[in-house]
């Protein structure tokens, strides 16, 4: 187990380096810091001096990869690549273009993001599994058929309409929850109810349909036929045999998103005005703050790779047939 883990982590490192190189190429090679300075300063104030000042304030005035003027190891470390890209490996995100410490912002904003994403994840898993189990129980009847039709219809609606509709009905017409905003402590609950609810409904169709397929696939297997043949009731078959076996692909499929819960959701957070990482990213995109976007790309990839690692481990925990070799 330990050697497998070490090997998997070792395998993740080149991927992380690859991600780093891709972002470096995107942000510093396709567009030079000069271009970025011009955009940030606006057309009116562009002078060579202003660009030079903008660059030196943010440390973009160094050579890209190799500093011929420096001495010793500083030839390699006193460069944009080292300062802006290599340091990401130590989670040193540097400063945003407005001068704020990105690492601090990320730590502060993880909480609110998680406050939405975690309930959605947990309640969602429970709700979707129950709903799809219901459909699977009534398979090939009108209940199942209308359930699938409902799922396809729900899938065909853009997530933004769920948010807009939810805000309109729940907050404006019924006045049950505030339209947007965020509070501290217990106060936060009333702000969280609506976003969580909307996020749950928004992914209901797709998830339920997906889980239903897994259940049906499982129900076609031999052990289910055996269970029925020995006279177990259909409910018993469903809960003690099918559910347990179908939970393997469902759980292992869900594990990969757990680390990404920290990243929050771009659209939900920005619509509901929640100060999480998602709205942070949106704001950064809007103000073309390249440093923040770069940091979020790296963080997102890192968390995804952690998720893949957790998936591999969870396979072995829930399915004894899989051995880590």
């Amino acid at each position, binding site marked *: 187990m330990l050697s497998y883990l070490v090997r998997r982590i070792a395998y993740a490192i080149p991927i992380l380096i690859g991600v780093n190189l891709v972002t470096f190429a995107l942000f510093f090679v396709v567009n030079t810091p000069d271009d970025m300075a011009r955009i940030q300063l606006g057309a009116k104030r562009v002078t060579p001096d202003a660009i030079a000042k903008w660059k030196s304030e943010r440390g973009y005035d160094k050579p890209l990869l190799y500093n011929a003027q420096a001495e010793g190891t500083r030839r390699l470390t006193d460069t944009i690549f080292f300062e802006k890209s290599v340091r990401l490996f130590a989670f040193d995100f540097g400063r945003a273009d407005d001068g704020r410490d990105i690492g601090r912002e990320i730590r502060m904003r993880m909480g609110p993001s998680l406050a939405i994403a975690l309930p959605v994840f947990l309640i969602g898993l429970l709700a979707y599994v129950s709903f799809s189990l219901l459909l699977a129980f009534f398979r090939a009847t009108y209940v199942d058929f209308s359930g699938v039709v409902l799922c*396809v219809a729900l*899938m*065909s*609606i853009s997530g933004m309409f769920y948010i807009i509709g939810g805000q309109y009905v729940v907050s404006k017409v019924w006045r049950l929850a505030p339209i947007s905003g965020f509070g501290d402590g217990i106060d936060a609950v009333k702000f969280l109810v609506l976003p969580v609810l909307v996020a749950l409904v928004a992914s209901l169709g797709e998830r339920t349909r997906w889980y239903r397929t897994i259940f049906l696939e499982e129900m076609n297997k031999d052990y289910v036929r055996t269970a029925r043949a020995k006279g177990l009731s259909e409910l018993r078959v469903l809960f003690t045999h099918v559910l347990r076996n179908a939970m393997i692909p469902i759980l292992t499929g869900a594990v990969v998103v757990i680390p990404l819960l920290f990243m929050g959701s771009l659209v939900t957070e920005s619509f509901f005005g929640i100060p999480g990482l998602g709205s942070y990213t949106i704001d950064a*995109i809007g103000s073309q703050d390249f440093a923040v976007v770069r940091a979020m*790309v790296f963080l997102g990839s890192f968390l995804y790779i952690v998720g893949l690692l957790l998936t591999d481990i969870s396979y072995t925990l829930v399915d004894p047939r899989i051995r880590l070799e």
Partner: protein
Amino acid sequence: MSDLKIVVLWTDALVFLLLAGTLAFGFYIRRKEHLIAPWRRLAQSRAGMAALVVLALFLGIGLVDSLHFRPLVSGGGNGSERSYAVEVLSLLDVLLAPLRERKEKTYSAPLAAHLFAKETIELPDGRQIREYPRLLHGGAHLRDPATERIPDIGMRTARGVAYGGGLWLLADVLVTLTLARRRRTTFSTMHRDVWRGVTGIPWNVILITVGVLLLVAGPVFSLAAEYHVLGTDKVGQDVLYLSLKSIRTALVIGTLTTLVTLPLALLLGIMAGYFGGRTDDVIQYLYTTLNSIPGVLLIAAAVLTTQVYMDTHADMFETVSHRADFRLLFLCIILGMTSWTGLCRLLRGEALKLREMDYIQAAQAFGVRRLRIITRHILPNVMHIVLIAIVMDFSGLVLAEAVLSYVGVGVDPSMISFGTMINGARLEMAREPMVWWSLAAAFVFMFLLVLAANLFADAVRDAFDPRVRVRARTTVDDTEGTVSPALAVEGAMR
């Protein structure tokens, strides 16, 4: 000597290339029984055909909207310098010229005769009052909207329904006549067969879908002559026009995205699976790395950098439309970059399986070159996966466009799309009473398009996926699903 200059935008060229490719493929498989069989199965699916009718309507609008030109503004006489409008128009713009040109001042509700906001109006006697002013075009033919508007709308709706119904009857007769002639039966037998649903292709479902569309389109057209059927937006543009124009953007995103990255996914996926070894390692590393970057962030990062590039190279683009089109194409490529990894992995797995099949082993033993094995034996046998992937991806991409445009990394703000429509309308949520019609229009059009695409994709998957078919026929173990589709098709035909 023409008074317009034809403009072929990048996406236009690709759209028509795709269309030509599809037609050529259709012509190619016309006489090949083993290739046409899954399409026959598809044609028998009721939901699939109903969805296809709706999709065909959208596709038609999108294609008409893909023929661009710039009208002549001045010159053209005796050797004087010709100059063309800065604005690039499409054939659809010409057809919808009344809708496009009848701009109001600002918001107006659907079918309204007055503006949505009060304005100060000066009366002939010099007094000033605050009132809802009349619209410039919507309901302008009415003398007293308060009493005449509702009856007028009713009459026009009835007329539209009559037109739609008439066209529907015509369609019914034409379809039945054609079928009756082909099958050499009488009109009445054929008509009964069609409506009992005993024709192979579910013509009754197709006719009902066409009928519903005609019955909706009839009144809309007849009302659009004098009203803004779906209201107007903030700058007074007709929302119906905006919705129809958005269709092309959605279609381009949905289709070209997969098309531009298809060669990459095919090449790398098959190479990884077939060659294995070092090649496989490198390709796997490549797609795992790209896959690790969260999609939206990669798109955002890439679009931000292109934006900078486009701002610094502004002289590259002839008109605003060229610029918006370049961005649209780039968005397609970037969206494709984040989605080709999935298809690549699927193809790698399939190629890995196919490599061990007897007929490939036999070809190898005969000394057939590897390139030829790939093109003759592997490629045709993974095409169903590619097709399923293309149709399955479509609806997701249409939805993604709206989100990305909202986030600010989607299409160019000057390009009409569902995303820009939603983004513009969202801020008006807080108004009292609410401006709901832009959102509602975007919702209805998007919902129809995506629902049709989803239903069609399901039908395509059911018709083409050998695993679904094998499982449906007998309950063979899943490994049976790896039989080459050609074999499975023959099995299904017997």
